[in-house]
């Protein structure tokens, strides 16, 4: 690790300095090995077969012909696969039964896994899988999501489904300005660059799984429960992870690989194809949202209602809690938020970067922009007038809320003061130009974690923690945190992560990873430093201290704990062709203490680029008549390319979390929150047209232009 810009290597000063990644050299030379790249002797390759029907039953799996093909070792399906347990509660709730493959003959959605073909080579496995004849009994399917279906029902998820106070209709009636609008967001896929991959094998009575996941002890726990094994009989490793974004938990690839490794008693690798990922690895559900706002003449909110409905599968209940963001952002005398789901014959959705906040902030922050227009107020001023003193729903104090500081700094740097509020009046050649803004928030949490820190006899330190570096730079951040806590330099600290043998740790998710792990590393390191201060010698095996943050987290006072941010965007719209280009974006965040400015800025910018992708490009299209995806690949599902992302800027205001030992809040999701709204608001400012349906594709711009 070298110091990139302003870094210092003096003791107790590593956190807050820009450092290149510990594993950077391995990543730029190709030496870093990801899950599908660890060699195993006698490795067999599994290839999944997915249902071609959308709903019904498997009548027959005609394995005979396939088993006679060259190199084919086994075909696993519901008729011969071992039974597994699904009636348990894992670290993050009940499992999605989609992962428990081959347990019954029902097909609950298109692309449901019906068999695994195992062969000596990937080519043989692929051909055999493609040749496998599966007979079905097809039933009619229902995949129609709409806001007004009577079978929608409220679901709690990680927050209450419904909150309400005050008399909504009365306050709306009394309001000087009312906005009542519906928004929709599409089915979105994580599409991390590394497909899910796992190799499973038995080693001395232990199930070993080399995987790509967001938490090795999380997946270890799930596999142990599912296969009715002791935790100690399962080891999961995940050294380098090619992106996760919420999708890399327990999935069919680990479970089917473990089944096959058990059946064949040899290592089996299962790698999902890009197309398979679209139906097997979760996604962000489409949402239909309705926002009703009522404000006084001066823009102060009297009424706020935000309702969201999303789809889930018939086998698993997942709520995309889009209405939750209003519980943090804005208060009103009458305040009502509702998250509902509808069960359809579709794959199970899951967490995807800023679950709830990403689609929810699009609707709420676009509605705020519409209200600002009605009130004749600057959109920033409207938000500042509605800054709550305490949690709008909880009444709890905020641990810190520096949203106003973000807006002030952002407005200054973006040049907001010069903005002409009128829409549709700035032209540059074929382009209409506009600017927009939106607020962002995301919860700052932490999960219980354990860490091992060892003082080695040679004066160096070894940190072991079952953390996951999904691209966040966690390995590097923890090196800085450990160096400071140990009052040493970073070159004396080695951090090992991604191995369930290191003991329980929180997942890389919910912007909680670095905070959770840093807490544990800091605690163990601090205790170790105290022990070393006693002056006893270090034995050959070193001195190891283990920490566990469970109690410390339980004793945290109840507060509203969140990161905040202000997003700004400038867009150019060609209303003749429907093309939209984002010209610049600025995000200013209040997101706790920034451990490594180099990697943190990168991550925040990546989130903002996700906002571009969400606003303009991403949409998985499901054919209503087949119930299956249309063109489920990276040519059919558009994510932003280099050419879509201009020079973006991200920066932060001072905002250390007062109750976190390092001051961290978490930055994984906040960058995407509000970004799509800022862009949509800018599109309105450019053209005068409100686009309430994402993505704002060229055809939608053209169709909207026709109506104007």
């Amino acid at each position, binding site marked *: 690790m070298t110091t*990139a810009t302003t870094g210092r290597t003096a003791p107790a000063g590593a956190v807050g300095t820009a450092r*290149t*990644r510990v*594993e*950077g*050299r391995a*990543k*730029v*030379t*190709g*030496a*870093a*090995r*990801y899950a*599908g*790249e660890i*060699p195993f002797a006698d490795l067999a390759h599994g290839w999944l077969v997915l249902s071609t029907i959308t709903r019904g039953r498997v009548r027959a799996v005609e394995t005979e012909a396939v088993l006679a093909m060259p190199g084919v070792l086994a075909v696993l399906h519901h008729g011969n696969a071992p039974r597994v347990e699904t009636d348990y509660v894992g670290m993050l709730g009940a499992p999605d039964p989609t992962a428990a493959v081959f347990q019954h003959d029902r097909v609950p959605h298109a692309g449901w896994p019906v068999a695994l073909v195992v062969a*000596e*080579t*990937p*080519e043989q496995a692929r*051909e055999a899988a493609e040749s496998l004849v599966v007979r079905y009994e097809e039933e009619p399917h229902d995949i129609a999501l709409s806001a007004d279906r009577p079978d929608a029902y409220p679901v709690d998820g990680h927050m209450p489904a419904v909150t309400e106070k005050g008399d909504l209709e009365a306050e709306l009636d009394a309001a000087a300005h009312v906005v009542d609008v519906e928004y929709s967001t599409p089915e979105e896929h*994580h*599409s*991390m*660059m*590394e*497909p899910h991959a796992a190799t499973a094998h038995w080693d001395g009575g232990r199930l070993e799984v080399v995987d790509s996941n967001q938490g090795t002890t999380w997946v270890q726990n799930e596999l142990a429960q599912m296969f009715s094994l002791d935790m100690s009989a399962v080891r999961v490793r995940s050294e*380098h992870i*090619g*992106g996760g*974004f919420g999708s890399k938990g327990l999935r069919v690839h680990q479970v089917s690989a473990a089944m096959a490794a058990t059946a064949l008693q040899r290592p089996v690798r299962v*790698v999902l*194809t*890009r197309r398979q990922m679209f139906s097997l690895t979760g996604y962000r559900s489409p949402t239909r949202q309705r926002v009703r706002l009522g404000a006084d003449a001066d823009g102060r909110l009297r009424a706020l209602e935000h309702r969201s409905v999303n789809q889930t599968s018939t086998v698993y209940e997942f709520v995309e809690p889009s209405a939750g963001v209003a519980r943090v952002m804005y208060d009103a005398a009458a305040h009502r938020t509702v998250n509902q789901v509808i069960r359809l014959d579709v794959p199970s959705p899951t967490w995807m970067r800023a679950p709830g906040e990403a689609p929810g902030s699009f609707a709420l922050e676009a509605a705020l922009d519409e209200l600002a227009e009605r009130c004749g107020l600057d959109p920033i001023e409207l938000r500042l007038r509605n800054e709550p003193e305490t949690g709008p729903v909880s009444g709890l104090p905020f641990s810190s809320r520096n949203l106003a500081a973000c807006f002030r700094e952002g407005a200054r740097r973006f040049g907001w003061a010069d903005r002409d509020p009128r829409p549709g009046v700035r032209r540059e050649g074929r382009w209409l130009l506009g600017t927009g803004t939106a607020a962002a928030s995301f919860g700052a949490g932490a999960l219980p974690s354990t860490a091992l820190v060892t003082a080695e006899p040679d004066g160096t330190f070894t940190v072991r923690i079952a953390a996951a570096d*999904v*691209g*966040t*730079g966690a390995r590097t951040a923890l090196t800085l945190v450990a160096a400071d806590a140990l009052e040493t330099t970073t070159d004396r600290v080695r951090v090992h992560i991604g191995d369930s043998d290191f003991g329980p740790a929180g997942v890389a998710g919910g912007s909680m990873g670095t905070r959770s792990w840093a807490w544990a590393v800091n605690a163990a390191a601090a205790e170790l430093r105290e022990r070393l201060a006693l002056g006893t010698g270090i034995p050959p095996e070193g001195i190891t201290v283990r920490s566990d943050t469970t109690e410390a987290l339980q004793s945290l006072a109840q507060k509203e704990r969140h990161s905040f941010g202000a997003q700004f965007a400038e867009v150019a719209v060609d209303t003749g062709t429907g093309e939209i280009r984002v010209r610049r974006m600025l995000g200013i965040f209040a997101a706790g203490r920034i451990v490594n400015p*180099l*990697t943190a800025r*990168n*991550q925040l*910018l*990546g*989130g903002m*680029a*996700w906002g571009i*992708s969400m606003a303009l490009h991403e949409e998985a299209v499901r054919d209503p008549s087949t119930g299956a995806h249309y063109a489920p*690949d*990276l*040519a059919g599902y558009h*994510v*932003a*390319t*280099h*050419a879509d*992302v201009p*020079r*973006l800027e991200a920066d932060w205001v001072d905002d250390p979390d007062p109750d976190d030992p390092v001051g961290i809040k978490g930055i994984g999701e906040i960058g995407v929150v509000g970004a799509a709204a800022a862009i949509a608001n800018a599109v309105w400012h450019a053209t005068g047209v409100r686009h309430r349906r994402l993505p704002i594709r060229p055809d939608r711009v053209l169709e909207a232009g026709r109506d104007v």
Partner: protein
Amino acid sequence: MASAPSPNRSDITLHINGEKHPLTVDHRTTLLDALRERLDLTGTKKGCDQGQCGACTVLIDGRRSVSCLQLAVAADGREITTVEGLADGDRLHPVQQAFLDLDGYQCGYCTPGQICSAVGVIEEHAAGWPSAATDDVRPEAGPPELTPEEIRERMSGNLCRCAAYVSIVDAVARAADERAHDAEEAVA
């Protein structure tokens, strides 16, 4: 694996990073799979296996190509450079060094493809090739300047879902500047 004579397999020699690798391949084997599954050169990544992401980019006869759509048998005898072959011993290739210094990645999975692609982009630009970002492609207009917009267009065949695009473009620009500077010094 024993490989009986078959019309569907061939004995080939892959020339990779200056080394010759004799190999018997199933014709279905792509160059990408030959690198990863047969030669333990796993630096080249499989992101989509359909030519839609660029993670598998290598240089074939000096030109960037997606190895997932290149059959290994059809690469017999051609000069292949992968990410493992760019550094000069311990000294990183300037493009690799720029990615490292400027944090031109996050998860790192698209990185070898981005880096190989950037090496190709810099050579293509040096050869005077225009791009879709070049307003006037006529030779009279002269070679295009390698602006950030040109870099973005030329690098667009390499998806980065972490979206580390801002720092990748900075890294490519720095490496291109260094190459241009070196070329000037060589002339002087």
